[in-house]
Every structure is written in structure tokens, then in C-alpha cells.
């Protein structure tokens, strides 16, 4: 018998067991444990690469099934009156209950999916569907946009030739590193990235500050934190670095 079923298609050992029960058209209340155990293990063996972490759950079920199979095979001792209760309970009861529970919620998951897809009549609310992100609204002022642009343009003409040059010798990066540390020490909460550059008198000095900052981050004396794409970058001294 060859299986083309990929174990990855199952969401867990109970899912696989349920599949086997349904495929063989078995009565869930009267499962032939030997048959189902053999088929279950055959499935595991036919699986090639498998995520070890996930495999653990499948193997656990296999050992449970083997245990159950052996208990089913053992003849009950007719003279053992002390275990009367055992005689009344089927060792499969626990498995049956597990399968029934799992089946119920598997069905519920499908019902929910159908609801989401609109297969059943449902209510639609506004702006739903964006599962991942919390609702947010960008607030912006057109004047700020204009300011940003005119500042950029104003800084262009005399500075443009400087764009891709390293600082000249007159600005020492080591000095800037010292200056930054001293400054940050006075700001225990840290400062916003842009504020740092307001200390620069020209683009070369700003670049020197930036290189100094990179070096400090590399040396793990300073950390830079940004909470989200559009939020400010906060620069501060590493804790314990006094």
C-alpha cells in the first residue's frame, strides 16, 4: 500500500487519525486499534523530511496507540474481581473522546472560515480585513510638507558639491565621539536622531557627527532605537556606561 499523503498536510496527530478513520469509514466509537495503529505508523514511516519539533507530537501519539493496541490484545483476567471497574470501561474511551473533541473544533474552524468568506450570511463592518495592523491614521500638515521641501532646497546650492565627500581634516571624528558622549550623558532619556544634527553647523560637521555615532554604536557605547517605521530614532548611552 502506498500513500501519497503528505504529513505536512495534517495539523497534528489527531488530524491524521481522523483522516484514517474517515478514509476507512470506521465507526469512531468502535475503532479497530490494531488496524489504525499500523496505518498511522506506516504514514509516519512514509514521511521523508520532517520538522523534528512537529514530529514529536506525532511520535507521542504513535506510542500511545501502540500502548493501547497492547492493552486491547491482553486478555482480561476473568478471575480478577478487584478490577471490576476496568472491565466496564473500554481502553479506547479516552481516544474516542479526544477524536470527538478534535473533530468538533475542526468543524467549528471550517464554519468560522465560511463565515469569514461570506459563504453564510454575515455582517460586514467598516474597515475590516486589515488583520495585522491596528487602525491608524496619518496626520500631517501641508505647511510642514512645504517647510520640509523649502529647507531642502535652501540647503542645496552651496552644499551640493560636498554631498559625497568625507569630512576634511579640520573636523576630527574622535572629537565628535567625545562631544556626543558628553552630550548624551546630560540626556538620560536619550535624544531624537534629528536633534543630534541640529548641533552641526554644516553638512560636513553633520556627517562627522553621523560617522562618530556609527562608531559609538559599533563600539556598543551608544544604542539607537526605533519603535516603528515612522517613529523617531532615539539615541542614548548604553545602560551602565557612565
Amino acid at each position, binding site marked *: 500500500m502506498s500513500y501519497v499523503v503528505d504529513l505536512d498536510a495534517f*495539523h497534528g496527530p489527531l488530524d491524521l487519525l481522523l483522516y484514517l478513520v474517515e478514509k476507512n469509514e470506521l465507526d469512531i466509537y468502535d475503532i479497530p486499534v490494531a488496524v489504525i495503529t499500523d496505518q498511522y505508523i506506516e504514514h509516519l514511516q512514509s514521511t521523508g523530511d520532517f520538522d523534528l519539533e512537529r514530529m514529536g*507530537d506525532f511520535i507521542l501519539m504513535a506510542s500511545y496507540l501502540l500502548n493501547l493496541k497492547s492493552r486491547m490484545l491482553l486478555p482480561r483476567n476473568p478471575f480478577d474481581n478487584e478490577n471490576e471497574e476496568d472491565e466496564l470501561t473500554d481502553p479506547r474511551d479516552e481516544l474516542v473522546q479526544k477524536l470527538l*473533541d478534535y473533530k468538533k473544533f475542526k*468543524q467549528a474552524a471550517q464554519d468560522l472560515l465560511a463565515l469569514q468568506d461570506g459563504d*453564510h450570511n454575515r*455582517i460586514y463592518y467598516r474597515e475590516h480585513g486589515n488583520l495585522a495592523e491596528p487602525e491608524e491614521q496619518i496626520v500631517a500638515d501641508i505647511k510642514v510638507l512645504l517647510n520640509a521641501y523649502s529647507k531642502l532646497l535652501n540647503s542645496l546650492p552651496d552644499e551640493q558639491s560636498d554631498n559625497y565627500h568625507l569630512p576634511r581634516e579640520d573636523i576630527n571624528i574622535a572629537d565628535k565621539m567625545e562631544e556626543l558622549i558628553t552630550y548624551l550623558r546630560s540626556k538620560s532619556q536619550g535624544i531624537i536622531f534629528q536633534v543630534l544634527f541640529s548641533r552641526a553647523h554644516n553638512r560636513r560637521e553633520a556627517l562627522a557627527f553621523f560617522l562618530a555615532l556609527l562608531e559609538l554604536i559599533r563600539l556598543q557605547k551608544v544604542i539607537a532605537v526605533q519603535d516603528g517605521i515612522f517613529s523617531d530614532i532615539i539615541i542614548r548611552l548604553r545602560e551602565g556606561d557612565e
Partner: protein
Amino acid sequence: MLMWDELKGSIEAILFMRSEPISLEELAHILETPVADLKLTLEEMIIEYNRSKRGIQIIYTASGYMMGTNPEYSNILVRMEKPVKRKLSQAAMEALAIIAYKQPVTRVEIEQIRGVKSDRIIYSLLEKGLIVEAGHKAVPGKPVLYTTTNEFLKVFGLPSLGELPVLEGE
């Protein structure tokens, strides 16, 4: 104090803007109108909306009033759903279904039903805002309890948890 018509109009505008349920208390605060008056007005509005084949309706949920579409039109609205809608995996749906029907529920209880580790799935449901941590179970180890959110109701188009599809065999 607003006039009668203006009160209805204001409520309608507020419910339209807000995509979450709004409580009578919050409405009373915004509209500077007594809760009792608002309750009467809302009841009247709900009846008015339901009287005709309106596309939208006012829904009374456990956490307040909100506006949503009339379920009669879902076969049409399904045609305009955004193609980029983020679907949940079957595994995530299973965990979510267990939380929805058995809430409040612990991770271990979810894993017992599913038969597999579910911590990563629970984490992603939390991240998507479909479930929240809601206190701790009073058993040794004090495990975290999970419940579904309003966002869950919105995504699945439900007015309340009471309207979840009936579980097989219950």
C-alpha cells in the same frame, strides 16, 4: 441639548465613523445627553433601520452599539471583498475556534484538544488582535487565559459571541 432629529443624526454619524462598538455612556458623554434618552432613541433607530430592506443596520452588542451591513446582502458584498484579505491558516483557525467556543481558555487546554504545540499560533493570533490575554487561571502555575476580541467579531461578521455557529453535537 440637541433636538430629536439632530440627536438621531448625530448618533448615526458617530456610529458610522466609529468602527468599534460604542457604549451608551460614551455616547452620553459625547452628545451631552442622558443615557435613558439615548437608549430610547437607539431602540427607535434600530426598528426604523430594520423596517425596510436597508443595506446597513444598527447592531446591539455586549460592548455597545455599532453599525454594520445587513446580512441579507452578504452574497453581494462577498463579491467586493479585497483580494489581499489576509487569510488565517487552518491550524490558526482551529486554535481560534477552540478559544472562541471555550473562552476563557489556557494554552494547555488548547493543545490538549489540538494534540499539538500551539504557542506560535497563539502568539500570531495575539499579534493579529483576534485574541487577548484575560487574566490567569486559578490553578497551580497560574496559566494565562485567552479570550477573543471585538476585532474577532468584526472579522467574522458576528454581532456577538452568542451568534457563533452552533457546535456539532451540542
